[in-house]
C-alpha cells in the first residue's frame, strides 16, 4: 500500500531530521509511529503527503512515487490521503457542516470551490458523516463553540468526506482528555476494520499505541529503531526508543 525507501530529510543542511527511513505500511492496518519529542514523527508523516518536501529517497503509494508528481497529479494523490491534525485545523467561524464539506474541495474546479457550491449528494453525505460521528445536534453550530473531542471528530469527518484510502493523523489525541481520546481512537480503529482504510498515527502515549496499533514504528533521532507488531513492543524495545 504505502512504502518508504531510504527517506532522508534535513531542514538546515546540518542536522538530519530523518535518516534513511524505510518502512512498509499495510492496507487496513493501524500503524502507530512513536518516539521522543524531536524524533521526526511529524516530519515523517508530513512527508507522506508532501506537506514537507524531502531531500532523498522514495515514497511509494500504490507503486507511484509521490515525490515526482506534478501539481495536478499531486492534487489527485492528496485526494486519496486524509489528514487529521493535533490542533484540528478547522475554520472555526464556519459551521460543522461547512467544515466537513471542505473535504470535497479537492475534487472541485476553483470557481465552484470559491463559491462554496456543494451538490445535494455531498450535503447529504456530510450530514450522514456528522451523524455517524455523533455530532448531529451540532451540524449548524460554529466550530469555535465545540469541545476539543468534538472538534477532532469534525476533523475526522472532513478527512472522510473524500473517501480516502489512507488517513494520516499527527498526534490526534494529544490535546484531548482520556475519554475523548479513547473515543477518537475507537473511531480510527473502526475505520481500519470496517472500511479497510490504512491509518498512520503518531502518538506520545505508549499505552495507547500498544492498545490500538497493529504495527508500531519506533523513531529515535530520525532513525527507525523499532519496527514490528505491537505485541513485540516489550520493555527493552521501549528503552531503545526512549532512553
Amino acid at each position, binding site marked *: 500500500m504505502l512504502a518508504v525507501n531510504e527517506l532522508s530529510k534535513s531542514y538546515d543542511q546540518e542536522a538530519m531530521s530523518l535518516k534513511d527511513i524505510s518502512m512498509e505500511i499495510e492496507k487496513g492496518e493501524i500503524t502507530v509511529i512513536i518516539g521522543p519529542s524531536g524524533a521526526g514523527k511529524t516530519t515523517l508523516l508530513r512527508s507522506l*503527503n508532501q*506537506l514537507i518536501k524531502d531531500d532523498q529517497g522514495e515514497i511509494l503509494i500504490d507503486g507511484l512515487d509521490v515525490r515526482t508528481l506534478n501539481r495536478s497529479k*499531486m*492534487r*489527485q*494523490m*492528496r*485526494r486519496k*490521503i*486524509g*489528514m487529521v*491534525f493535533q490542533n484540528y*485545523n*478547522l*475554520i*472555526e*467561524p*464556519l459551521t460543522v457542516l461547512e467544515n466537513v464539506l*471542505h*473535504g*470535497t*474541495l*479537492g*475534487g*472541485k474546479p*476553483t470557481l465552484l*470551490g*470559491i463559491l*462554496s457550491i456543494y451538490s445535494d449528494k455531498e450535503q447529504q453525505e456530510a450530514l450522514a458523516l456528522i451523524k455517524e460521528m455523533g455530532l448531529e445536534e451540532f451540524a449548524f453550530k460554529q466550530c469555535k463553540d465545540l469541545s476539543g473531542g468534538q472538534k477532532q471528530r469534525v*476533523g475526522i469527518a*472532513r478527512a472522510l*468526506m*473524500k473517501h480516502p484510502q489512507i488517513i494520516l493523523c499527527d498526534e490526534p489525541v494529544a490535546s484531548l482528555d482520556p475519554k475523548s481520546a479513547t473515543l477518537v481512537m475507537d473511531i480510527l480503529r473502526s475505520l481500519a476494520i470496517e472500511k479497510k482504510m490504512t491509518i498512520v498515527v503518531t502518538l506520545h502515549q505508549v499505552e495507547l499505541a500498544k492498545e490500538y496499533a497493529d504495527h508500531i514504528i519506533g523513531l529515535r533521532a530520525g532513525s527507525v529503531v523499532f519496527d514490528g507488531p505491537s505485541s513485540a513492543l516489550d520493555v527493552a524495545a521501549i528503552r531503545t526508543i526512549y532512553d
Partner: protein
Amino acid sequence: MNQSAHQFFRHRNYRLLLLITEIVVLYLAAAALTGFNSSAWLATDKGIIWLAQNFIPNANSLQYMPDILAQLWQTFLIAVAAASCAAVIAVVLGMLGAQNVGLSKWKVGWLIRGFASVMRNIPIVAWAMILLFSFKQNELTGFLALLFMNIGFLTRAFLETFEDFDVKKMEAIQTTGATYTTSVVQAMLPETAVPLIEWLLYMIENNIRDATLVGLLTGTGIGFIFDLYFKSLQYGAAGMVVVSIAVLVIFLEISSNRIGRLIR
C-alpha cells in the same frame, strides 16, 4: 534599586519637559512664519457666542425636518452603496496584494499597495472637484468620489488584515487536494470576516461625514441642503442639518458596535 527608580523618574520628567518646550517652540515658530496673531484666541469666545445664538436650531427650524430627512436618507444610501462596492473590489485587490498568501506573482503586490495609497491619499474634495469636470453636478459624481477614496482606504485595510492571517490555517484545506486559490478563499475569508465587516461599517460612517463636504461641491444630498440654508441665511435650519448628521453618525457608530459584538 530605589536610587535607580528615582533616576528613572527624574529622567522621564526631564524628557516630558523637553517635549512640552518643543511643542511651544514649534507653535511660536509656526505662528511667526504664518503671521498668525495669537491674540485671535481672545476673540474666540465672541465667535462662539455668535454661533450659539444663530445656529442653535429653534422651533421654527423644525419645519425643515422632512426635507432634511429626505436628503439625509439619500446621503446614507450613497454612503452605503459606495462603501459596499468598494469593499467587493478591495477584497479582491487585498487578496492579490497580501504578501503572505501570495496569490499574485511578481511585484503585483507592491503595485496594488501603491495604487491604494494614492487613491486613499487624494483628499475627497480633490476627487469631487476632478470628477465634477466629467460628470457635472449630480449624485453620480458624489458616489464616484466616495467610491475611489473608499477603494484606496479599504484595499489598504483589508490587505493588512489579510497579512495578519496565519497561512497555516489553510493547510487542512490544501491537504484535501483543493487548489491554492480555493484554499485561500475558503480559509482566509471566514477567518477574517469580522475585521472586514468592522472596516466596512467604519467606512460607511466616515462616508456620511465626508458626504457633507462632497455634497457642498456636487450640489447633492445633505451637503447641498446645508449650503442652501446657509446661503439663504436660515442659520437655524443649517444648524438642524448639522445636528441631524451628528445624530445619524452617532447612531451608526452605536449600531456598528452592536453588530461588531453580535458577529464576534
